[in-house]
């Protein structure tokens, strides 16, 4: 059954510890230090191979946590996560050093991503081509416009060529032209049958690009299914939320927050270090 799915989540939870100074959030004042918090709570879904999934949700609903969990950067605390194939998070501006030239940055970021020396040489031309920076490639990256920088970073990232792409708010860094360029590139990847997880606030972009959507709210699973359906429900919810008075909004947030708190259990080893 796992063959046709690229990602399967079974009751996955991710738990963070709250800082000690948030005393007021704890119910048990004596043990407030060990209060934990569900960043993701009991999430289950399965994404088929080759589908393009938009992840929706308001601020703080766990989208970014989902992205680092999905990309294997951070471990899950409960449940089971099955990933078939190599996954990679597209982190556009990460790993670029402003003091180095574009060329040196291709070497550096390529190495950071774990590409071999040979592979880096292979991709150089296509990266320079995609980034549209011409002779600027021999200038230090600090002299680049933000668009150039983003294109360079994105192009190096593409060289990883994973089976599953995870794109977290990546397209909000550049201008419209950059976003379009990336979308075009991703449409190409889509045709190649790659699985793409697309995390964005821009509902129109998600609607246009994705064929499925996952909606998280307050760290919990809300809906997963066809893009139009989920996006409509999400838009309705956002409208409803925006229509609330300030006090009602606060209540809604508190309610969501309370559902994510975990009562402190037994003391964990190493708690001395983890404040």
């Amino acid at each position, binding site marked *: 059954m796992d063959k046709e799915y690229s990602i399967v989540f079974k009751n996955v939870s991710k738990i*963070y510890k709250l800082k000690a100074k948030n005393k007021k959030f704890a119910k048990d004042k004596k043990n407030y230090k060990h209060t934990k918090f569900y960043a993701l709570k009991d999430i289950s879904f399965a994404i088929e191979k080759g589908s393009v999934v938009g992840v929706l949700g308001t601020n703080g609903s766990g989208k970014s946590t989902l992205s*680092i969990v999905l*990309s*294997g*950067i*951070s*471990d899950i605390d409960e449940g089971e996560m099955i990933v078939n194939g190599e996954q*990679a*998070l597209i*982190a556009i501006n*990460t*790993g670029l*050093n402003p*003091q*180095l030239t574009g060329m*040196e940055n291709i*070497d*550096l970021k390529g*190495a*950071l*991503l*774990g590409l*071999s*020396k040979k592979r880096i040489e292979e991709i150089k031309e296509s990266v320079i081509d995609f980034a549209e920076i011409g002779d600027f490639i021999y200038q*230090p990256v600090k002299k680049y416009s933000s668009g150039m920088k983003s294109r360079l970073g994105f192009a190096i990232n593409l060289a990883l060529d994973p089976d599953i792409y995870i794109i977290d708010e990546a397209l909000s860094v550049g201008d419209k032209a950059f976003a379009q360029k990336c979308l075009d590139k991703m449409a190409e990847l889509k045709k190649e049958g790659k699985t793409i997880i697309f995390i964005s606030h821009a509902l129109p972009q998600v609607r246009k690009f994705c064929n499925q959507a996952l909606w998280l709210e307050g760290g919990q699973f809300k809906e997963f299914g066809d893009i139009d359906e989920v996006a409509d429900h999400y838009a309705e919810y956002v409208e409803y939320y925006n229509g609330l008075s300030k006090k009602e909004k606060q209540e809604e947030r508190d309610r969501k927050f309370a559902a994510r708190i975990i009562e402190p259990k037994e003391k964990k080893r*190493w708690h001395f*270090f*983890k404040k």
Partner: protein
Amino acid sequence: MFKSLLFVLKENYQNLYRIISIAKYEYLATLRDSKFGVFWSFASPAIQVLTYWLVFGIGMSRGKQDGIEYLPWVIVGFSAWWYISPCITGGCSAIHSKANIISRMKFPVSILPATTCAKELINHFFMLIIAIVVIIAYGFTPNIYWLGTLYYLVCAFIFVWSFTMISSVITMLWRDMKTMVRSFMRLLLYMSPVLWTARFRSFPMMNKLMKLNPIYYIVQGYRDSMIFSKPITAHPHLAIYFWGVCALMLIVGSALMNKFQKRFVDML
């Protein structure tokens, strides 16, 4: 226990190219910060040595150490220290300073200690050049024993690497580690035979205790090879002790690294 050691060694070996590239380009980036980058790589340690020479060699008229003029004696010892010290202080933040990378990329965290130590090696070569020029000027002629320095260089690398493996993880769990280590560095400098022979005339017990400091073996080794023309087998007991300490640190360090590898992101 040994499983995590094997895992760390394997990961470091497989990512050798990554380690070298990161070290190289990080060093390049620091050079670009200043106009005369390479010049300062020479000048900065030279000025340090000059200071110690003026104060201890001339000012306090230390005269000869173990029968050797103070300047060539101090510069060889200091070149070892000039490598160890920035590795230990900088090594504490080896993981923490890469926060943006480890939180946005799938990255083998256990190679970060090695990158920090490799980056400092470049500076160390500049320092060694200065040291060699000075001691040749003082009439020492290169001989076969000088090659022993390479062995002690490997010792120094393994020592700071295994130390950094522990300290960088502890820094992630407990940020005060960095400040603590930095505060102890000055003490460590005088507890090692870098600027003085570290011999207490009135407390002979202390002389034995000083040898428990692994840096003693490295600094002494640099001097043995370049000044006293002693082979690398001159201190067998110290050598066994030194490698034992390194192995222990490496085992503890890789166990820690393995335990927290996927947790670092949540600790930032």
